[in-house]
């Protein structure tokens, strides 16, 4: 990025694991909680415990975020916990890119890119939404210290440019 924008945008390295299964099944839920070490999130939310996060992506899909490099170990632990069940555990760390947007105006910068309502009332801390950002699909969630955007690695450069553009110092907004 050529010049710093009105918010800070940084690309984060993280281990990411897609976990799919029947989220209505008690057996699956119990095993998933044991394997992830986190309480399963309610629809359209994300939960944290230290460096780990577990987000609700779809009625049959969760995303586990772990520190960078811990993907493979976590996959092994999850596969052990879910042994014998109809479930999918896939390390998608290299298939996804993650950006963190922080600073006053972070919500405004992202609101330029997505049809999602990002006002603090509609999108409080702990909310996760999969939506469109510019021309690509992405997921975003709100944390205490900003917003995190997740997209496919193949469009990471596009996303980086998009975020740089949206946070251009001459284009600062204060709406929320």
């Amino acid at each position, binding site marked *: 990025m050529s010049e710093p924008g009105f918010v800070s945008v940084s690309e984060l390295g993280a281990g990411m694991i897609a976990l799919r299964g029947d989220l209505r099944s008690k057996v699956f839920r119990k095993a998933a909680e044991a394997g992830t070490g986190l309480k399963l999130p309610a*629809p359209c939310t994300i939960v944290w415990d230290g460096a780990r996060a577990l987000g609700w992506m*779809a009625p049959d899909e969760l995303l586990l975020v772990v520190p960078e490099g811990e993907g493979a170990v976590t996959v092994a632990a999850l596969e052990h916990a879910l042994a014998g069940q109809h479930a999918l555990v896939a390390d998608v760390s290299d298939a996804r890119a993650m950006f963190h947007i922080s600073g006053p105006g972070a919500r405004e910068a992202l609101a330029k890119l997505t049809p999602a309502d990002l006002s603090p009332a509609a999108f409080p801390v702990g909310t996760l*939404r999969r*939506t469109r950002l510019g021309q690509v*699909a992405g997921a975003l969630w709100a944390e205490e210290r900003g917003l995190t955007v997740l997209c496919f690695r193949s469009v990471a450069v596009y996303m980086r440019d998009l975020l740089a553009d949206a946070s251009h110092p001459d284009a600062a907004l204060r709406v929320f």
Partner: protein
Amino acid sequence: MLYLKCPYCGQMADETELASGGQAHLRREGPDSSDSAFEAYLFLRDNPRGVHFERWRHAYGCGKWFHAARCTRTLEVFGTYRAQMGAPPQDILAAIAARRGETA
């Protein structure tokens, strides 16, 4: 702009987050059907001016297919329901009847 509530994740999805799947509740004609019935299944679609049942996919969201009932004339949305339903549910039909009665 068209907004539909995804019945799976409960989010109000913008038209640009959705992919249209055309007319809903088509009945598949199998290999034993006549050529004309198979042609109708493949190609012939209703194009009503009024209430239309459609398939939509929450493409940029949870990725699930669902059904929507809306009016092609006023763009009013009567409701959305799950893709597993073979026919519109009673509450959607009641909502349509109530609104149509009002505007008829």
